[in-house]
């Protein structure tokens, strides 16, 4: 078989352009699939390792104030592996002239391996000296440029307490540093975690011998939901406030959501990509081998068996498949590492070692090899089925019928000869035109979908922060205020409008389904917060009842007209042990579109009524004459003792954009890959077209067509096919986008399908540019067609 291998090798060398372009498509497909998936896997693996190493809790129990022996009570349960009692409290602090909130959490006085442990990044752990030593979380530490030895002075129970910073830590409990579910984006400057010695924490909060938090690690295999119910019953008499499962814990939940979103954002796309690449490879190999018809027939005539011939052509396919998979995998691993590091700038997970995921490389390679092999096999099958005599006969030209366009005499006369050839080719060899188009249709669709993801995301942010949240500043108060308290704020310079808002967390329940979300109570005719429906049209907030977001409606299975149980999570309002007594039955009055976060909306008064308060509020929305003046206004606001926080929209948008960096980056990669694929496909197709038609083109050259006339012939035909294919591709792309976005939605973010004319135009321009570029590059090939050689063969 050695001779056949020589033939194989030389065939490849001769048509290296074609094989190279197939290889390119293959490499891109495998690389992208492997790369994106392995980055995500690594992220997942690194986070899991982090959580396990530092014993992230499975269940948190919060009490008003429980005696320490409750810990041993909990430990007694068979399901419990380990439990650590802590004191957790949020306090205010003014640092660097800014207001911030610190969450003080106790850690064992002596280094231990408790639940919800911390990772020491700099400095040292507590020593037995000063009692007021503290460890500060990395983000806050860096945001305020702290150093070991610095002092922090939070306000604790009315007194300024000095704390001495001795080290910087990181904790899996606060991978995402959010204070509560109202915070959507971590703000390292305004929220920090500070760890104190347990003895000290107990002392300053008057918790001697008591704790208010139990972090529980369960044994493997335990059903956490069941256990949660069980332990709640038991701990009721200790002043239980609430229990939180790991999956609902804010940081873990948000991170999982991120991971989920990144996974689905990039999840289906690579597979699709690989499949498109595989299809194109199939079509191409098929054509290449069919072009060897006569040689196949000759081998058969010589007496080579079908098996020998099939193996020969199969090896073409497999050689390419193997090389492509190998290169693609190598690049993919590299890409994966790169992406992983990019993604991790957000989370700062410790990355000790990154695994090479062979369980990703192998499926991708196998899929690619399979398609190549299938192509090789199928292509021969047809030729080998018929007797050699027939396969060596040139394929009978199709029965020549006048195509419909030729029948329109007056139109047909107007075309010059070149166009006649082009049009006839298109209409007669529809199959060839269609196969050519498939590649372009798919890559256009992918490209459009990728671009669309970008526009959808941009729309999301614009919509949310320009059309929905029309305020410049959002001020949060540390207690409920009455409407009369607003007056001072209204008189502040640069403030043009003030609207009160009552916002708090609630748990909405519909039967067995429930979700904790934020409830926002707006004034009538709010101008600064516009709730919209999915068409982008404003929705009026009803007098009674609530509006819920689309996603919430799905999660709870509730539609307008249904009743939901609403239980406020207002500190102090739900220490009533009987949960159900606090719940009210509220009617859903409408469903609104919400892309970021998950909320319910109602009238201010209505929200107040749920809390059994009068018309009160705890936030205001401000509109300024010019956003630049916000600094001055903020200073005045902060001076007010009732003000707990001031959020500026500009800063929030900046934070969100930063938070979405990973998503945006992934999309960027998708766009780049689609573009690359589109180019490879176009190049591929053009190369093969020219090769298949070389006899025809050589004849034209002999007849006297100039190089530029031949160029035009090939070029124009390609352009028409491309144009039609792009049209189909755009159409397909829209549906693809729909599908991908639906897949990418999480609780915190979901995307409307938005395709602006710009996306379409860009996709069209890109694909056309690639086609033109490929044609230009390959023009030389047309010029170089050796008339004599091409015409020598008997096809």
């Amino acid at each position, binding site marked *: 078989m050695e001779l056949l291998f020589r033939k194989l090798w030389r065939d490849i060398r001769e048509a290296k352009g074609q094989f190279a372009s197939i290889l390119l498509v293959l490499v891109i497909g495998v690389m992208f699939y492997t790369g994106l998936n392995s980055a995500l896997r690594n992220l997942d693996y690194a986070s899991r390792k982090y959580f396990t190493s530092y014993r992230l809790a499975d269940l948190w129990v919060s009490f008003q104030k429980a005696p320490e022996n409750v810990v041993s009570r909990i430990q007694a349960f068979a399901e419990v592996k380990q439990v650590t009692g802590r004191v957790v409290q949020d306090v205010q602090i003014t640092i660097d002239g800014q207001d911030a909130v610190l969450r003080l959490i106790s850690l064992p006085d002596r280094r231990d391996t408790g639940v919800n442990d911390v990772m020491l990044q700099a400095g040292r752990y507590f020593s037995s000296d000063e009692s007021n030593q503290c460890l500060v979380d990395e983000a806050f530490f860096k945001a305020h440029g702290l150093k070991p030895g610095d002092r922090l002075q939070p306000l604790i129970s009315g007194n300024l307490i000095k704390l001495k910073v001795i080290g910087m830590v990181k904790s899996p409990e606060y991978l995402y540093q959010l204070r509560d579910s109202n915070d959507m984006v971590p703000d390292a400057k305004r929220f920090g975690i500070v760890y104190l010695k347990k003895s000290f924490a107990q002392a300053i909060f008057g918790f001697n011998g008591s704790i208010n938090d139990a972090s529980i690690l369960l044994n493997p295999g335990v059903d956490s939901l069941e256990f949660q119910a069980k332990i709640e019953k038991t701990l009721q008499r200790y002043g239980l406030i609430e229990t939180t499962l790991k999956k609902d814990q804010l940081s873990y939940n948000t991170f999982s959501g991120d991971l989920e979103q990144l996974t689905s954002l990039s999840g289906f796309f690579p597979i699709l990509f690989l499949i498109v690449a595989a299809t194109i490879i199939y079509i191409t190999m098929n054509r290449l081998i069919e072009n060897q018809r006569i040689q196949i027939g000759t081998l*058969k005539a010589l*007496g080579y068996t079908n098996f020998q011939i099939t193996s020969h052509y199969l090896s073409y396919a497999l050689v390419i498949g193997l090389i492509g998979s190998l290169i693609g995998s190598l690049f993919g691993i590299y890409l994966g590492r790169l992406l992983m590091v990019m993604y991790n700038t957000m989370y700062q997970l410790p990355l000790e070692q990154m695994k090479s995921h062979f369980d990703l490389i192998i499926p991708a390679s196998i899929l690619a090899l399979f398609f190549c092999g299938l192509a090789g096999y199928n292509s021969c099958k047809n030729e080998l089925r018929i007797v050699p005599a027939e396969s060596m006969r040139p394929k009978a030209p199709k029965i020549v019928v006048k195509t419909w366009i030729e029948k329109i005499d007056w139109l047909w006369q107007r075309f010059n000869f070149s166009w006649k050839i082009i049009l006839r080719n298109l209409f007669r060899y529809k199959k060839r035109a269609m196969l050519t188009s498939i590649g372009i249709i798919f890559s256009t669709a992918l490209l459009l979908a990728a671009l669309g993801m970008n526009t959808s995301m941009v729309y999301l942010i614009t919509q949310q922060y320009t059309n929905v949240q029309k305020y410049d500043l959002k001020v949060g108060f540390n207690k409920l205020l009455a409407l009369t308290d607003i007056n001072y704020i209204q008189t502040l310079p640069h403030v043009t409008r003030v609207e009160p808002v009552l916002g708090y967390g609630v748990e909405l329940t519909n039967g067995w389904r429930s979700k904790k979300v934020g409830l926002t109570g707006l004034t009538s005719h709010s101008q600064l917060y516009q709730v919209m429906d999915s068409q982008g049209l404003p929705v009026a907030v009803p007098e009674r009842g609530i509006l819920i977001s689309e996603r919430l409606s799905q999660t709870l299975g509730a539609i307008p007209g249904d009743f939901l149980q609403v239980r406020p999570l207002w500190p102090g309002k739900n220490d009533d042990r009987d949960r159900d007594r606090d719940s009210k039955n509220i009617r859903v009055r409408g469903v609104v579109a919400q892309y970021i976060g998950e909320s319910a909306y109602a009238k201010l008064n209505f929200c107040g009524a749920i809390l059994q308060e009068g018309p009160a509020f705890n936030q205001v929305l401000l509109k300024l004459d010019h956003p630049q003046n916000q600094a001055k206004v903020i200073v005045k606001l902060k001076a007010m003792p009732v003000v707990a926080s001031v959020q500026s929209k500009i800063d929030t948008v900046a934070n969100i954009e930063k938070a979405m960096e990973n998503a945006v980056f992934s999309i960027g990669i998708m766009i780049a890959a689609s573009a690359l694929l589109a180019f490879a496909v176009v190049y591929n197709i053009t190369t093969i077209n020219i090769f298949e038609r070389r006899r025809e083109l050589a004849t034209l050259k002999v007849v006297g067509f100039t190089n530029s006339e031949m160029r035009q012939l090939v070029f124009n035909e390609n352009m028409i096919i491309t144009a039609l294919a792009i049209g189909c591709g755009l159409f397909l792309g829209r549906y693809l986008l729909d599908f991908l976005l639906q897949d990418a939605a999480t609780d915190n973010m979901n995307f409307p399908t938005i395709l602006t004319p710009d996306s379409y135009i860009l996709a069209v321009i890109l694909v056309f540019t690639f086609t033109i570029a490929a044609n230009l590059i390959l023009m030389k090939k047309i010029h170089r067609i050796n008339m004599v050689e091409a015409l020598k063969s008997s096809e």
Partner: protein
Amino acid sequence: MGNFLNWVNDDMNNSLIRLNNVGKEYLVGEVPIKAVDGISFNVEPGELIVVLGPSGAGKSTVLNIIGGMDRPTSGEIWVEDQNIANFSDRELTLYRRKKIGFVFQFYNLMPNLTALENVELAAQISDDPLNIQEIMEAVELEHRLHNFPAQLSGGEQQRVAIARAVAKNPLLLLCDEPTGALDYQTGKSILILLSKVNRELRKSVMIITHNSALAMMANRVIRIKNGRVERIEVNESPESVERIEW
């Protein structure tokens, strides 16, 4: 009448090949077309046979069938006491491999293999191949062994094709219009080569041509018209090719 006489005269058991009422029918749309309509003749060992007839008479079809490259729709073809008309695909493949050497009008060489390699391609699947170097010398291509078909003239390519066919050491050499694409001189040299193969290597050779002057070089001439054998002539003393002019 001539058919019948010849059939009776020949000793059936010694014939290399016996065609018995072979037919080949195609369906073009709904209409059946008979390319070969009941052809019978014999080929004796060591004979050089010329098959004559106008274009479209069915000559190539008959050759293809004898060469195992196509199947008849009716009739029998006995080759060394086996009826190849009933052969399975695999059996036909082996038949082609071992018994037949085929020379095409348009050479059908592998474009990416050298002259030598093209011949080796055939030799290596044969059980008992002839010595390649000797064959290449016999076809006078010993200096062009490492050229690719594109670098060879038509005549040279045809010689490679003949070498390839002969290298397998087949029972029968079948040539479909071997000089069709060549000029007078070159064509003549090819025919000289073929008769050399016939006489010196003692191979039965069957040549299709539409040039009736070549009838003189054959031991047996089979004239085919409209898919049927018109007549069969036996030449007691065939002419040598050099002396034939046309």
